[in-house]
């Protein structure tokens, strides 16, 4: 079951039985969420629990005492500290910010705004100091009443203006604090409509501020943010063609008669939808096509002079007569993503139903058949929610395009080693740098296939490991003659006596079979030896998605060891004796190591010291 198949009705009327059913699922990822309330939090927690369970998490919640969103973290943080949250959500609203009086001057307005900001900064600073975890902070909806009418938005005594100014200040703070995410209550409430937002009867009765449907919208947004934090946001929008991206059936009508451009209202509507898809692509969401058509006819549609989308915008193109779910599996494979990264949009309910039934991990929003509504429905699903926007994210589509170039270049070589040399690869392999920590945390949370242990770390945890004297934390960036692949590998080890336990080893599937893992091995081997470490200990913990790396340590030359008692089911253990280590990387130019290279003199010196 996934979110698209759940109706608001079911969610409101069957919460407890749904929860029981979902909790019984195996393989749920635990997540600890503390909710600090500016109003009663029970209603939002109840809904959020179901949504987060549907997303594959097993949530534990801690709710502050009523209204103590400031006092608990700032003056009384012990219960929060004891709870050890992964995420703290600050559930505040405009009700928690006193309005300026109508006669407030510009100068007083600024002073009052600062003092509110200082109050919230105190909360975020206290949380950072005591917990250093991810924080989600609500910004503010517009007030229920415009006491000054239209001037409420412009006068220095206007409550609306005050809240909007505070929202702007929150946005700036979020830019400075990587672990602070703002939940745009202002935007969410605007889409629902303020008249449908505040529930005065429930507020006066139990201090629940929001109507049930409004609560649901907030819970959906929170769920999307939590998924984003753990790298579960979707990455690919797969689109049908006829009557989805243009009006008409191109096989029957021919490219000249499809409706796209500005000639008719329908053409305008499809043009607007194509523009929406292009905006998604420009922020890093890949576009793929899955259409029942002759390939030539399908491609011709993109050559229509008024087509907004062009073939170069499409990362994977499937036009044939095979069942769509088979094509979707192919698309996922070619783009190296799981089916749970796909969103499938088709105007035809029969096609949607088949995909839903065959591929339950694919998101299939019910977009209906009216093109003017497609974008709003997709938007409301929040499939692509980001928790950060790195250069890599924005350029993802371009990265995939240069990969296609690499693939066709490979075809020219019969000797694979020659091919690798011809790529002129260079790698930057160093200990974690603060500027890369967000990308490191992101990569850690979304890499599933080439991942030896599938251990997840939050940004905060990575931060503290990067400065720990008992850990070695390395990232790898790979560039070649076709372009920069970006930061694509992480190796993290913890030191125990004369061994380094490799707690984390992962690599982006984008750079498979380039020997990058050998370059990473050389780097970790040199750094470990420089500390007097004699053995590298590798662990493989099997998961649903990482079967491809079962032989990773064997390929790197490690020796198999018996698994200690209490190891996870199916885990394998490996050891590498660094004595006499020689470099394995043959095809990648690495920048010189900061630490001295391994030689017998250093090893025996280290041995005599330990």
């Amino acid at each position, binding site marked *: 079951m996934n979110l698209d198949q759940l109706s608001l009705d079911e969610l*409101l009327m*069957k919460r*407890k039985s749904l929860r029981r059913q979902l909790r019984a699922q195996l393989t749920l990822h635990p997540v600890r969420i503390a909710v600090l309330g500016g109003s009663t939090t029970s*209603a939002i927690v*109840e809904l959020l629990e179901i949504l987060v369970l549907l997303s594959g998490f097993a949530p534990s919640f801690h709710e502050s005492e009523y209204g103590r969103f400031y006092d608990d973290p700032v003056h009384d943080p012990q219960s929060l500290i004891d709870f050890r949250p992964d995420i703290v959500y600050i559930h505040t609203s405009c009700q928690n910010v006193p309005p300026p009086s109508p006669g407030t001057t510009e100068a007083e307005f600024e002073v009052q705004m600062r003092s509110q900001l200082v109050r919230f900064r105190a909360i975020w600073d206290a949380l950072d100091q005591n917990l250093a975890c991810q924080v989600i902070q609500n910004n503010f909806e517009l007030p229920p009443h415009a006491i000054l009418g239209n001037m409420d938005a412009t006068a220095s005594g206007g409550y609306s203006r005050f809240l909007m100014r505070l929202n702007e200040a929150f946005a700036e703070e979020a830019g400075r604090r990587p672990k602070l995410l703002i939940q745009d209550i202002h935007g969410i409430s605007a889409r629902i409509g303020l008249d449908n937002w505040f529930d005065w009867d429930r507020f*006066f009765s139990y201090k629940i501020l929001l109507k*049930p449907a409004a609560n649901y919208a907030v819970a959906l947004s929170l769920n999307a943010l939590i998924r984003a934090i753990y790298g579960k946001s979707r990455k690919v929008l797969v689109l049908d063609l006829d009557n989805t991206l243009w009006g008409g059936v191109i096989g029957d009508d021919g490219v000249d008669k499809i409706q796209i451009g500005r000639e008719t209202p329908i053409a305008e509507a499809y043009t607007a939808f194509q523009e929406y898809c292009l905006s998604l692509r420009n922020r890093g969401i890949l576009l793929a096509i899955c259409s029942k058509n002759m390939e030539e006819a399908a491609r011709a549609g993109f050559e229509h002079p008024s087509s907004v989308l062009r073939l170069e915008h499409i990362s994977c193109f499937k036009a044939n007569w095979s069942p769509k779910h088979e094509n979707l599996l192919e698309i996922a494979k070619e783009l190296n993503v799981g089916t749970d990264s796909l969103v499938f949009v088709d105007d035809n309910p029969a096609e949607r139903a088949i995909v839903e039934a065959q591929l339950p991990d694919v998101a299939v929003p019910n977009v209906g058949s009216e093109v003017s509504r497609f974008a709003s429905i997709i938007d409301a699903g929040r499939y692509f929610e980001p928790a950060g926007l790195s250069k890599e994210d924005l350029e993802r589509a371009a990265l995939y395009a240069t990969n296609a170039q690499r693939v066709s270049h490979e075809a020219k070589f019969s000797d694979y080693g020659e091919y690798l040399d011809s790529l002129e690869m260079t790698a930057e392999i160093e200990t974690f740098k603060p500027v890369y920590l967000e990308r490191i945390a992101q990569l850690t949370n979304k890499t599933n296939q080439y991942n030896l242990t599938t251990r997840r770390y939050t940004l905060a945890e990575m931060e503290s490991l990067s400065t720990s004297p008992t850990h070695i934390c390395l990232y790898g960036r790979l560039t070649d003659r076709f372009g920069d692949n970006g930061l694509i590998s992480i190796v993290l080890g913890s030191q125990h006596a004369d061994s380094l336990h490799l707690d984390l080893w992962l690599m982006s599937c984008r750079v498979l079979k380039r020997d990058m893992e050998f370059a990473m091995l050389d780097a970790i081997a040199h750094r470990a030896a420089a500390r007097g470490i004699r053995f590298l200990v590798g662990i493989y913990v099997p998961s649903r998605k990482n079967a491809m790396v079962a032989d990773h340590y064997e390929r790197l030359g490690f020796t198999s060891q018996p698994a200690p008692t209490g190891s996870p089911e199916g885990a394998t253990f490996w050891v590498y004796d660094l004595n006499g280590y020689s470099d394995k990387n043959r095809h990648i130019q690495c920048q010189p190591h900061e630490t001295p290279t391994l030689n017998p003199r250093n090893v025996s010196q280290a041995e005599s010291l330990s």
Partner: protein
Amino acid sequence: MAALTPDKVLAELQPIFEEALDEPGLSVTRESNATNTPNWDSLAYISIIEMVSHHFKVRFALAELQDLKNVGDLVDLVVAKADRT
């Protein structure tokens, strides 16, 4: 459309109370209230009112909710509201 009778309302309330109080197989009577029914706390009460509003498509005024003493009162209130629409 058939008129909503007290018996019909009581019957339709059963699954709502089972769900809100998390007690499958629970059976409430006109005399049931927070003092004599398991798991009926203030959080459950919020759910009950929300679900009853949603299911019968009625809106309760604050004053109406204040006077409810047991399930029987709730049944009569729902019947009265359904008559008015």
